[in-house]
């Protein structure tokens, strides 16, 4: 689904260049659930921008769904984003003056789907994330977790092959984080490739593959247990929540 070959990306600075991604080689198969981890400055945001066609790269190769992504017009990139990708953001990024159902329908608006049809679809997707009764609410009338679920429904509505989530639980408490993660895992179970950028081990631990970035290079890549080692540092409180709400949690978390 995603293949990066010796990908390099740098940002021009005043007098020099800031080399951010230093030859990334990465391959992600359809239907994978991947966490990208790394300290701030490690290049994970840049990697997400490149993967999400929000930004270009200098050299190397990027193939998305079998297509080579090179230099392309913003119009074409927007079209590919709309058809292949869905985004979930840390701060939800709902349009504040639009109701939940309008927010969910927004990507279809840009694909010029008729209003009636896209609003009907949006209601279906809201129902899927359990918010059918909040369709007419504005974002400020929803809790953080509910807003993030609206955002997930919005990412899903265009039927993307890949969902890119940037710190999807970063603004949520642990109980809500877990619920959101559950929703994301369910989506992944339907075959959508899911990439989650996170710095929370608890979140990464609930994926099937963790890629660790450090200083623009991939430092580790493998199942959470391997990357973190056996002694998972998940706090007891979180483990308790996980244990009580999910019976499919990765062994590494339950092991504590």
């Amino acid at each position, binding site marked *: 689904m995603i293949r990066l070959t010796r990908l390099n990306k740098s940002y021009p600075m005043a007098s020099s260049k800031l080399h951010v991604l230093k030859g990334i080689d990465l391959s992600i198969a359809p239907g994978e659930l991947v966490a990208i981890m790394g300290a701030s400055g490690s290049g994970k945001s840049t990697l997400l921008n490149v993967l999400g066609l929000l930004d270009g790269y200098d050299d190397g190769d990027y193939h998305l769904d079998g297509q080579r992504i090179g230099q392309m017009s913003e119009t074409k990139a*927007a079209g590919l984003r709309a058809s292949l990708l869905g*985004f979930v953001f840390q701060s939800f990024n709902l349009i504040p003056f639009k109701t939940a159902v309008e927010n969910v329908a927004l990507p279809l608006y840009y694909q010029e789907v008729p209003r009636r049809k896209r609003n009907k679809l949006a209601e279906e997707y809201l129902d899927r994330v359990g918010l059918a009764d909040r369709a007419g609410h504005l974002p400020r009338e929803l809790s953080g977790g509910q807003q993030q679920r609206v955002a997930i429904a919005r990412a899903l509505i265009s039927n993307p092959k890949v969902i890119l989530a*940037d710190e999807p639980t970063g603004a949520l408490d642990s109980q809500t984080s877990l619920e959101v993660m559950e929703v994301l895992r369910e989506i992944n179970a339907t075959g959508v490739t899911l990439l989650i950028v996170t710095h929370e081990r608890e979140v990464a631990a609930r994926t099937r593959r963790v890629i660790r970035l450090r200083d623009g290079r991939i430092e580790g890549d493998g199942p959470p247990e391997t990357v973190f080692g056996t002694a998972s540092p998940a706090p007891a409180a979180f483990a308790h929540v996980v244990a009580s709400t999910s019976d499919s949690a990765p062994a590494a978390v339950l092991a504590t």
Partner: protein
Amino acid sequence: MTHLLDLDHWQEIRVALLRNRTRTLLTAFGVFWGIFLLMVMLGSGSGLRNGVLQGFSDGATNSFFLWTQRTQKPYAGMPAGRGIRMTNADVAAIREKVPEAEVVAPRNQLRGFGGGNNVSRGRKTGAFSVMGDYPEIRRVQSLRIETGRFLNPIDVEESRKVAVIGTRVRELLFARGEEPIGDSIVIRGVYFQVVGVFVSPQTGDAAERDAQTIFVPFTTFQRAFNYGDRVGWMAIISRPDVPASVAEEKVLSLLRSRHKVAPDDLRAFGHFNLEEEYTKIQGLFSGIRLLVWIVGVGTLAAGVIGVSNIMLIIVRERTKEIGIRRALGAKPSAVVSQIVSESVILTSLAGYLGLVAGIALVVGIGRLLPPGGAGMFLDPDVGVGEALQALAILVVAGVLAGLAPAQRALAVSPTVALRSE
């Protein structure tokens, strides 16, 4: 561009513009004021123009007047300062030798207006202008017959003692409700039968002067008041295909040779060319109109720049939102169309209100004016064409005002969507 038909497109514009009502209102006011002033100025210009050009109303603009003065140069043994008299023979000669002159109407005038009493009826007397005229004079000086008739060719041919009087004459010589037609008035001791009453279509002083005028046949005038074959002055209309100035030149040179006036003595004959005056005034008002457009469009431009400025601020405020939309698949064209639509809606809505308010004011003033206008002001109006032009300018201005902000919006990278504040 199909989303132009989408309800959400317009809803977003509404929300965007209503988010900061005061700011939107102030910005809109700039455009409103510009177009309002433009309309009021255009209306005033047209009112002034109508008022001034009314003086020419119906009068043939290809006509000129001609009278004698004193010679300025000695010529053919004659000294300078000699007075000249035109006669019926001059009229005949012009008719014969200057085919460019279609109508030659000689005139004589008894000066009564502002002078001593010269007209009476029973015990009532008055001082009026008495004109000896041909019926063709109506082609130069427009008159409206209220009752009865104007002079006709038979009146002139038979030297009938008939008179057509102005409304003020009737007021002063006849009792209220008395029928003047068929009755007689005495002009310098000679009885004339009143055959018509006329009204002047002019305004102000000119109308007042006309109202105190009496028309009698030219031939009758010469006989009744001992003018012999003297001609006071002439009104001449050139053929429609000949400019009045051409006929004027020919008539003048003919008269100079007939009266032994030096060919280069320009002041022996006085003349006044209505066509030249008309063209001059037309030119003046074209100039005024141009000025109005320049000032109006300038004011409007200030308003539009205000819109552009506000749109830039709006784009800056919405940077994050624009980034999110782009991450969700909004094509650059959709972003541009959104911003430009907002700008066009704001500009044309404010402008439309200004247009309506301006035209309403102009029409209101027009309604309040007395019929026939006040002073030099008559029927102020803004043409449909000008209103449509102004609207077209507004839409174009709206697009232009939106372009720079739209460019700014395009420069927003979709990566800002990922940034968390």
